[in-house]
Each structure stands twice: as C-alpha cells, then as structure tokens.
C-alpha cells in the first residue's frame, strides 16, 4: 500500500472526526436565556472514535477490499440468473396483486381498530405516491411541492363541509377536480423550465400555498367527515380509501399504456428527440402534472375526512419529501414497487417506536444510497416489450 493511500486515509479519518465530534460530542442545553455546554456520554465519544478508525481502515485497504469484492460475484445467487420470462412475470404480478387486494378486503374484519386506522393512512400514502409516480417516475418532472395539491383537496372538503354542508361524496370529485385545476394553472407557466429549476419552483409554490393557508385561515377544529355514524366508521372509511386506491392504481395503469403514457416516458427519456417527433412538450407535461394533482386531491379529501380536522402543519415540505422518498425507494415508474414502498415506509415507524425518531434520518440516507447504488429503485419498472431472439 502506497504512502499516498495512507495520507488519504488519515485525511478522511480526520474529516470524520471534525464533522462528527463538535456536533455529536457536545450538547447545548438552554435554560431560560443562558446556554450551557455539556459533554456527551462516553459511549457516544467511543462511537465517534470507532467511526473514525473504521473510515481510516476502509480508506487504507480500499483498493484491496474493492478488488476482492469484485472477485466474488458468485456470492449473490441471483446475479447471473436470467430475467424471468415475461408471461410468467405478468402472471406472478397479477397473482400477487389479487392476493394483496383480497388481504386488504379481509383486513378490517380481523385487525384491531388502530390497525385499520393505520391501514387507511397507508392507503392515502399509496394514492399520493401513485399520483407523484406519474409526475416524477413517468414524466420525469421533479415536483417538490406535491403536497400543495394534497392540501387543496383537504381544504376544499373542509371549507365546503363547514360553510355549505356538502357531503363527502359530493366533495370528493370537487376536491380532486379543484386540485387538478390548480395543477393546470400552476403547471402552465412553470413547465417550460428545465428539470432542476422546475423542482425549485414547485417547492416555492408549495411553500407559498402553505404560508397563505397559515395566514388566511384558522385551522379547522370542528369535526366534519363522512356521514356514517357508529363504531363502523373506521372500517367504512378504510373501505372507501381502498376502493379509491384501487381505482387510482387501475386508472394510472391504463393511462401508462395509452399514447399519452408513452409520450410521458418518451419525453422523460429524451426531450429533444420527442419534440422532433412531433410531441407537444407542454401539453404532454401538463397532462402528467394535472393527473398527478388530481389524485393528490383525491387523497387529500380522504385524509380530511379521516382526520376530522386539518391544519397547515399537515402540509409541510417534509410531507412532500416523504412521498418523494416512497417513489424513489420503490423505483421510479414502477407501480408495484411504489405500492410496496408506501406500505413499508408508513408501517415500519409504527412497528418500531424507538426507531421512529430516526425515521427521517434513515429516509435521507436511504435516498442518497439509492441514488448512488441503485437509481432505478428496489423494484424497477419494466415495460412490456418484445426481445429479438438470437439466431442459433
């Protein structure tokens, strides 16, 4: 091992110490106006030192380690496996879907009330993630203000039911359509922008809508919701959410195979090529944006009726980031992956309470690691395609 390696490893270890020791090793405690400093526990300090040593050793033997890792691809038995045949894969996928829907239908009758309530939340996230999947995964437009459309749906229901006594069933399409209208109006000017600018602008829109909601309306504390009294309300709401989620999944599945769905993907892959083939860029992008917003409005209405009250705190940027994390982890564009990721991301923090404090930390790290190692997601999207057989 060369001296260069040693120098680099030492440098990396020192940087590790510098970025972790001041923040983790000292705790600021404020009592009234005075701020005091406390040293962290010994275990934390040992942990920091250990991390530095690990970084040092890893960087020192990096070449050897990477070399030996590359020599054992056989460790993963799935690596050299041929991709499953298409007809078989489709059958497996549809069987899995049927099983999931049957399981979801039986669920409320065997699980506790709290579990059903959680499942409703999962379904809301499934709807949101499927909607965002259209925008980010299929059309390749990074929308960081997606939660704004969710808020539009929720507030539409809240306002309509508060001031006009409109029922859930009437408010549902209105909320979704209004969210779609917002998507259309906001999307029209911004969709000319390039990818990363678009992300920032949608983030700005999301924040503006949240600040306006914060300043213009008081939060709704009066209960409103579905006119269905009694103890079965939770189950009823769950079933509504399930039906809506299934409708969302089927609708998007059909859209993906329609010309407009193919246009979304064409535009994502190569904008200039798609344009030169005669696709109207703005119209195609706008359709994806509007449809994504529509389903967010759907989810927002269900969310409002589940909560019974809403406030702007439910629609912060973090919520957009969680939905984006679901789409990224599941595999951009892949419906199955997104559904499974939505279930996992919502349920895991509930299962392990002590873990929930670290939830966002792990999401952030997972987003980075996914982009570095597997940008296509855990369950990448596969299009139906025909492969030419090699001639024998």
């Amino acid at each position: 091992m060369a001296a260069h390696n040693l120098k680099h490893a030492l440098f990396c270890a020192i940087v590790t110490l510098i970025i972790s020791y001041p923040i983790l090793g000292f705790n600021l405690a404020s009592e009234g106006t005075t701020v005091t400093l406390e040293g962290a526990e010994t275990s934390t300090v040992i942990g920091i030192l250990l991390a530095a040593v690990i970084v040092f050793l890893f960087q020192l033997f990096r070449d050897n380690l990477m070399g030996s890792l590359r020599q054992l691809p056989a460790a993963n038995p799935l690596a050299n496996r041929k991709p499953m045949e298409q007809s078989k894969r489709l059958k497996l996928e549809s069987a899995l879907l049927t099983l999931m829907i049957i399981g979801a239908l039986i669920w409320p009758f065997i699980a506790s009330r709290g579990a059903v309530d959680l499942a409703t939340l999962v379904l809301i996230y499934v709807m949101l993630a499927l909607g965002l999947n259209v925008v980010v995964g299929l059309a390749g437009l990074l929308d960081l203000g997606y939660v704004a459309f969710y808020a539009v749906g929720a507030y539409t229901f809240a306002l309509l039911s508060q001031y006009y006594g409109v029922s859930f069933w009437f408010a549902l399409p209105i909320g979704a359509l209004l969210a779609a209208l917002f998507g259309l109006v906001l999307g029209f000017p911004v969709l000319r922008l390039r990818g990363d600018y678009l992300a920032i602008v949608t983030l700005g829109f999301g924040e503006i809508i949240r600040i306006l909601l914060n300043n213009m309306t008081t939060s709704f504390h009066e209960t409103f919701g579905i006119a269905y009294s009694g103890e079965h309300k939770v189950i009823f709401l769950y079933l509504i959410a399930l039906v809506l989620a299934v409708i969302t999944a089927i609708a998007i599945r059909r859209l993906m195979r329609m010309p407009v769905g193919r246009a979304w993907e064409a535009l994502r892959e190569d904008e200039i090529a798609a344009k030169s083939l005669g696709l109207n860029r703005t119209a195609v992008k706008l359709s994806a944006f509007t449809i994504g917003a529509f389903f967010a409005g759907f989810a927002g209405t269900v969310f409002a009726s589940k909560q019974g009250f809403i406030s702007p705190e439910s629609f912060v940027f973090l919520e957009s980031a969680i939905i984006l994390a679901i789409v990224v982890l599941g595999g951009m564009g892949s419906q199955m992956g997104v559904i499974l990721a939505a279930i996992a991301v919502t349920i895991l923090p509930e299962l392990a309470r002590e873990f929930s404090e670290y939830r966002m930390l792990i999401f952030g790290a997972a987003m980075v690691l996914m982009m570095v190692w597997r940008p296509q997601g855990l369950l990448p999207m596969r299009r139906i395609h025909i492969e030419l057989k090699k001639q024998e």
Partner: protein
Amino acid sequence: MQDLLYFIQQLINGLTIGSTYALIAIGYTMVYGIIGMINFAHGEIYMIGAYTALIAITGLAALGIAWLPLILIVALVCAMIVSSSMGWAVERVAYRPVRGKHRLIPLISAIGMSIFLQNYVHLAQGSRNIGFPALIEGGFRFGAEDSFQTSISYMQVTIFITTLICMTILSLFISRSRIGRACRAVSQDLGMANLLGIDTNRIISATFVIGAALAAVAGLLLGMYYGSIDPLFGFIAGLKAFTAAVLGGIGSIPGAMLGGLILGVAESMTSGYLSGEYKDVVSFGLLILILLFKPTGLLGKPEVEKI
C-alpha cells in the same frame, strides 16, 4: 422626514440580511457554475456552521474567556473548519458517485443529504431553538428624539464589514490564485480543463469547501443577528440564498452578491410596508417570476443547449 427615516431603516435592515444571503448564495452559484447541479444541502451546511459557532462560543465562555475579538475569531475559525469539512464530505459521499448521471439523480441525492443533515443535528442537539448570545450590542441612532429614529446597530456594521472582507478575499482568490484560475477554467469547460492537466476532482472539492466556509461565516453572523437557531433554519435560508443566486444569474459570483442584496431589500420592504408574514411569499414569488421571464438572471449568461 419621518417617512424617509423609516425607509432608510428598512433599506439598512434589508442590506444587512441581503449581504448574508449573498454569502450563502456564493456556494450555490459556484457549484452550479462548475458541475451544473443545485447543492440542496448547502442550507444545512450553513446551519451546521451556526451550531458549531454557538458551541465554540459557549465552550469559551465556560473556560472563562471573555475577550470579544478572541471569542469571535475562534468561533469563526471553528465554524469554517467544520462546515468546510462537511462540504467536502458531502460532495465525496453523495455527489461524486452520481456525477454525470441523469439530471434528477444528483438532485434527489442532494435532497436526501439535506434531510439527513437536518435530522443529524436534530438528533444530536434537539429540535428546540437555542438562544444565541448577542455578543455585540449597541448602535448608532439618527433622527429627532421624540419621533422615529433610524438605528444602525454595531451588529449590522459588523455584518457589513465581514461580508465586504469575505467578498474581497474571494474575488482576489478567484482572479489571482492558481486554484481560482483553475476554477474559472473548469467552469468554462470541464472536459477541456481535464485534458489540459487540471485535476478537476480537486477543483470541484475546492469549490464545495470555499462555498461551505462562506456559509459558515454567514451562519455565525446570522445566528448572532437573529439571536436563536434551530435545526430547520438552514432550509428556508438556503432557499432564499438560492433565490438570490438565481436572481443574480446562477453561475456568476458578482451576480450572487447583487442578487442577495436585492432580495434582502425586497424582503425587508415587504415586512416594513406590508406584513412580516408575507416576506417569504414575496421572495418565493420573486424566484418564480425570474425563472419564468428571465431564467438567466440579471448577470448570467444564456445557456445554449447543444445536441
């Protein structure tokens, strides 16, 4: 007369905030100018700088050191070292492996990094906001005794002077030094600079380090100015600074300075004449309008898309 004094007060407040936005915006604009990505985690690096400075200040106070210049210099140096190490590490871990891939991939990686760093500080230091001691107090006052007075605090003067010094050093560094020349070459043409023997990886690391060090300076200054910090305060400030960078023309360093000042003044005029609650709406609205009508900003060069 009174109206004029009120206007001048808002102008001074705006220029103060604006000059710190400019310091943060430099980090965005330099990174964008060289590798064309938005470093979403830059606001968090600024926040970490503020936390480190506060830790250093309280640590020195606990040791019984009370000489103000020493406290400020130690806090500044500590914050700059920690932030620039963070900037270096973030680039190394989250951005270098995804460089050159599809545009969305580095951006999502950066968002993940931003969430990670926010929660890292949140878990280590708690989510409550912590008071930042006002080390520099007092100021000048203008105007009649019995009516509205324009006041310039010594803190505001410190912010101006520090920002001015930092900007001057940066300009000299970029225009005169070897690394600065390499930075300019890399931002013009990365591939060509590589062919001519410039270690582009090192230059990219250097831009992250410079941007992070300036963000740390802003962290210390704004922490003292506002009087409290919390793990989330980097996010909004980062967004504002990005707005400033876009306003001035992203990729251009003088543009970032100009954009920061304009944004700061626009914001303080809004809170002075309309309502403080809408100042964020105004700055985001400004960002959207600029991107829609003049995406190249005030001093930026138009970008030509080649096939």
